[in-house]
């Protein structure tokens, strides 16, 4: 199955522990194993632009679509057997420790 990992911030996470895995280790391990298809960091919410078309009129606004204290800091697309495997991979990402990760299954257009 294909899953998108949304790598998100979490303002309640105040951990001072050293990371169990560094991001370099995580990327190397998941890429070498053929699990991770692609992924990247994203520029912060300040650099976001939101586009809407309503009744033929285009609206372009500065910022993300939802004003929240948390934002999506990156994403990864992974391919693995089931949700438990995806959870295991997400749990090793350093942002599981310092932020939070939302796992969403892909919904391919058939």
């Amino acid at each position, binding site marked *: *199955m294909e*899953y998108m990992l949304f790598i998100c911030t979490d303002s309640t996470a105040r951990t001072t522990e050293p990371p169990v895995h560094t991001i370099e280790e995580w990327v190397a391990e998941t890429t070498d194993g053929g699990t991770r298809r692609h992924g990247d960091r994203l520029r912060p919410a300040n650099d976001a632009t939101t586009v809407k078309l309503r009744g033929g009129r285009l609206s372009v606004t500065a910022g993300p679509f939802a004003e929240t204290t948390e934002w999506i800091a990156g994403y990864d697309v992974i391919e693995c*057997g*089931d*949700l*438990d495997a*995806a*959870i295991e991979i997400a749990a090793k990402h350093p942002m599981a420790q310092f932020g939070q990760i939302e*796992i969403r*299954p892909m*919904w391919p257009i058939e």
Partner: protein
Amino acid sequence: MADRVADAIARASAEETARIISTLIRMTGDFALAEDCAQDAFVRALSDWRKGGIPDNPGAWLTTVAKRRAIDLIRHAGAEDRALRRVAVGADDPVEPDPDSNADIDDRLRLIFTCCHPALPIDARVALTLRTVAGLTPAQIARAFLVTEPAMDKRLVRARAKIRHAGIPYRVPPPDLMPERRDGVLAVLYLLFTEGYSATGGGDLIRVSLLREAIRLTRLLVELMPDDGEVRALLALMLLHHARSAARTDAVGDVVTLEEQDRSLWDRDAITEALTILQSLVPRAGRYELQARIAACHLEASDAASTNFARIAELYDALAFIDPSPVVELNRAVAVAMSQGPEAGLRLIDALVASRGMEDYYLLPATRADLLRRMGRGTEAATEYEKALQLAPSEAEKRYLGKRLAEMRC
């Protein structure tokens, strides 16, 4: 005849649903399809058994009918895939499955662990477990949880959809995940139990039936995982609470505290069974084991005064270590008060008041009030009873606190 058929169907639903659905999931790989076919088989049974009589082995009859239904549905959908061939091969197999075979045990365990997967919301886990493992109808589950039937149907549909879409695996978790996932299953069963237990003494029989279902499902899990001490400890804990059901409210539904309960109303058979389980456990300081041992201390005593509260305080100490909640701390303070005197307990409670998250917890002023009353400080006790009265969640508890408050004032 009609009643006999209805009884046989109710019994088969309780005893065979998990087996039928898990068999069909194994064959089709489709949770929702398996459930639908099982449901259809029960509907067919109602008419067929009235005409032709109840079969010797209702479980085997229902499984065969459900399998044929699955084949029809898959053919109809035009999905001539591997799943169909697998179902087709076994559909008219006259050999009855051996109910004690490892495959059958694994099937039902897989079903329980899938229904209780942590990726499902807790209310969905509870509903799915009752539907597919316990064999309750959506209408019954809806009534037990005080929601409408369409709302419960929607909850079940969403849960099944998530299992399929999110790729929740249909399996018994591997050893590295087992302790966490096992605790997740036990939490669902215990939640069912406490839902039912909180309704005992009231008139809501459907809600009370949850208590019976929780004990039945825990017995099933003990049967499927006989080597797991925490599963057996949970059964013991449920039995010990359940043993006191008849004594915990009086004739008008008011709360009777443990101290004042008529111990002759306690269910001795349930207590004996629970104590036998606890004696057979290797002490591992598990969450449910500690709670069961605490309950056992209360129930082994011939009266409230001879309860071994020093031992109970020790057990709460151990429980606070693995599960450090204010509620556990409060209970520990009560045990200390009962073994070392109210002053010692009050000191612990005052320390708790300073801790966060307890402002609205009615048992805190209620317990302070109780200790102050025992120390003869009636005016201070009355003030605390008043505070507790304002925070108490149920009418029965308000009546109890009101009675105590009146005593302090005369």
